[in-house]
C-alpha cells in the first residue's frame, strides 16, 4: 500500500477531479425529534453537500448495489413465442465518497456470497465492478460494535482511504486509478511524525468504542440456545416489519414478482428486497410456514448472520454498524440480543 498526505483544503480538488462521474456520499437529511442530525447516502451534486464528518447514515449503501426494487428482465410476447431481455441496470461508474470501514467491509462480505458463490449475481456484480470507493475514518458512535465484529478497519475493497489528522488527510492508496487521481493533487509522502500521528489517531478511535458484543463461541452458543426462552421474549417485541434487514448493509434476501403489462404484450420480472423477519418469508405451497412465529424469524436472522455465514465463509455477516438496532422501533439491538442469548443480558429469563 502507498501512503500520501494532503492538506484539507485539497479535498475539494479531489472532489472536482472526480466530479465528471456520478458521486454518492453522505448528505444531511435534517434533524430528528431530539435535534440530532440525520444523514444518509445520496447522489451529490455540490461539494458543499458532502458531509464527511457524518456520524452514521440511516440506510446503508445497499440501495446502490442491491436496489430495493430492481427490474431483472422484461419479456416481449408474441402469439406463440417470447423474448427475454436482460439488463443489469448498471450504466455509469460511480464514485462512493466517504464510506466508513464497516460499510466497505459489508460490501466485501456481500461479494463472498453474491460474486464468490457458484452462481454469481450478475446484477450485483455489474454495479460492484463500477464502483470507485473512497473510505474515511469514523468516530465510533454509542451503538457501533464493529470492533467486536472485526470490521473496525478495512484491508481491501476500496481505492482510497482517508484518515483525518487534524489539518491534513492521511491517504491510503489501494488502486492504480486512485494513484492516478492522487498524482493530480498537491500531496506528498507522509513524514515520520505523521506516521506516528496516524497510529495515534487510530488508537484514540479504538478507545472510543463503548459498545461490545462477545462473539466467543457464538456459533455454538446459538446452536445450544436454539430453544432458549429469550427468543420468545424478543419475538413478542418484534413487529416483523423487516426494517432491520432493510437498513442492514449485508442483508440481501429477496423476492421475485412477475407482472404483465396492461397491453398484455409485455411482462416484467422484478426483484424486491425482502426480509426474513416478514411473516410469509418461509411459507411454502399449501400454506405451511416453516417459521410461523415472529421469534422463529427473528432468531433465524441472527442464526444466518452469526452462525450460518460464519460456517460458510469463516466470518460473520454482521459488520457491527448498529443500524438495525438504531432503526428498530422495538429497540431490538444486536448487542442486547446476543448478550441475552449468552445468558448475560437483563432480558435473560
Amino acid at each position, binding site marked *: 500500500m502507498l501512503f500520501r498526505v494532503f492538506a484539507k483544503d485539497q479535498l475539494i480538488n479531489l472532489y*472536482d*477531479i*472526480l466530479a*465528471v*462521474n456520478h458521486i454518492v456520499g453522505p448528505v444531511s437529511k435534517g434533524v430528528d425529534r431530539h435535534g440530532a442530525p440525520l444523514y444518509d447516502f445520496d447522489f451529490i451534486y455540490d461539494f458543499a453537500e458532502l458531509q464527511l464528518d457524518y456520524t452514521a447514515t440511516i440506510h446503508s449503501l445497499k440501495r446502490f448495489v442491491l436496489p430495493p426494487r430492481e427490474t*431483472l*428482465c422484461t*419479456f416481449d*410476447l408474441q402469439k*406463440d*413465442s*417470447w423474448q*427475454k431481455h*436482460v439488463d*443489469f441496470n*448498471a450504466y*455509469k*461508474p460511480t*464514485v462512493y465518497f466517504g464510506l466508513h470501514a464497516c460499510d466497505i467491509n459489508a460490501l466485501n462480505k456481500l461479494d463472498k*456470497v*453474491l460474486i464468490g*458463490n*457458484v*452462481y*454469481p449475481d*450478475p446484477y450485483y*456484480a*455489474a454495479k460492484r*465492478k*463500477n464502483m470507485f470507493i473512497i473510505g474515511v475514518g469514523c468516530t465510533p458512535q454509542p451503538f457501533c460494535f464493529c470492533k467486536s465484529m472485526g470490521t473496525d478497519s478495512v484491508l481491501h475493497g476500496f481505492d482510497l482511504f482517508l484518515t483525518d489528522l487534524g489539518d491534513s488527510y492521511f491517504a491510503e492508496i489501494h488502486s492504480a486509478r486512485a494513484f*492516478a*487521481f492522487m498524482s493530480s493533487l498537491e500531496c506528498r509522502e507522509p513524514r515520520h511524525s505523521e506516521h506516528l500521528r496516524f497510529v495515534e489517531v487510530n488508537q484514540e478511535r479504538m478507545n472510543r468504542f463503548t459498545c461490545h458484543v462477545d462473539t466467543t463461541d457464538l456459533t455454538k452458543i446459538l*446452536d445450544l440456545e*436454539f430453544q432458549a426462552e429469550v427468543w420468545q421474549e424478543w419475538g413478542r417485541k418484534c413487529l416483523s416489519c423487516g426494517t432491520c434487514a432493510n437498513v442492514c448493509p449485508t442483508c*440481501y*434476501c*429477496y*423476492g*421475485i414478482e*412477475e407482472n*404483465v403489462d396492461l397491453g398484455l404484450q*409485455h*411482462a416484467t*420480472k422484478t426483484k424486491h428486497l*425482502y426480509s*426474513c423477519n416478514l411473516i410469509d*418469508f*418461509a411459507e*411454502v*405451497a*399449501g400454506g*405451511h410456514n*416453516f*417459521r410461523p412465529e415472529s421469534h*422463529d424469524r427473528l432468531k*433465524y436472522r441472527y*442464526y*444466518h448472520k452469526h452462525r*450460518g455465514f460464519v460456517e*460458510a465463509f469463516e466470518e460473520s455477516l454482521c459488520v457491527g454498524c448498529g443500524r438495525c438496532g438504531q432503526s428498530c422501533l422495538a429497540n431490538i439491538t444486536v448487542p442486547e440480543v446476543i448478550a441475552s442469548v449468552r445468558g448475560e443480558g437483563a432480558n435473560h429469563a
Partner: protein
Amino acid sequence: MHKLPFVDVLAEKQNHARKQDLTSFEYTFQAEITNVYPLTTTEKLYQIQIIDPEERQRFSFQPGQFVMLELPGIGEAPFSISSSPIRHGDIELCIRAVGNMTDFLARVPRGTRVGISGPFGTSFPVEQMQGHDIMLIAGGLGIVPLRAPIFAVLENRNRFGNIDIIYGARNPSELLFTYQYDMWRQFDINLNIIVDTGDADWQGPVGRITTILEQRIAAAPNMGKNTYAIVCGPPVMFKFVCDMLLKAHLPMQQIFVSLERRMHCGRGKCCRCNIGSTYTCLEGPVFDYWSVMNMKEAI
C-alpha cells in the same frame, strides 16, 4: 477531470467454474411444452423439450436435481425433474396446481413456450448406491422427485440389490403414475402402495406408510448397512419414517431426503430456501439424514 472507465460485466470474461461469462447466469432455455397428461385432478405431467437441439443435448442433470420453470409474466418456480437423465433436455415435470404459477400452468395448452433454467441442486448418489439394496419411500407428491432415480436404477437394474418402493397417498384417486406400476414390477421391484382411505375399487392396503415400512423392516431383520433409503414427502412424514429407518440400523449417511422450501432464485441468493443457514437450492434439495439432523428446523 477523470472519467472512470465503465466496466461492462457482460463483456468481461469471468473465470467461473461453471459457465463462461456472467450473462449465462441469467440464461433461460426456451422450451416447449410438447405434451400434457392429467394424472389426477390437481397434478399433470408435462413433457417439456428445450427448443434448440444443441442446448437440449447439452442439458444434462442428475436424478434429484430440479429446474426453475418460468412462465413469463406469471411466475417462476422450482420443480424436480421427474424423467430419466438419459433424455437430457427433453424432460418431464409432474406439477401440482397449488398457487399462482402452477394454477396458470394448468391452463396452458400444448405447444406453449416456457423458460427453463438449471439444473440446480444436489442429487441422489445413484452411483454410490450400486451393489446395495434400495428403499424408496414416498408420500404424496414425494413420488415425483423419486421417479428420476427410479428410472436411473431401472436402466441398470442388475447393478442393484433388492429394490423396494413404498408409496402412500391419501386416497386411490391421488395416486400418481399408476400406468407405470406394472412396468416397475416387471423390473423386479417390490412395489407397496398404501392409501389413507380406500374406495370401492381399492384392493390394496389401507393405512399409513409406516405400517408397510414396519412390515418390511420386520421381514428383513438385517437390512442395516447394506441398504440405502430415499425418503420424500410432506415434512411430517420425514420424522417418523427416518426414525424407523435409524432403528433398523440404516446409517444416517445412507438415508437421503429431498426437502422442499420456497425458492425464488435457485441460485443461492434469495435466502428463501434457507434452513437454518443452509441453502436448500445449493446444498440441497437432496440431503443425507445426518445433515438434516444437523440443521435446525429442517423438518
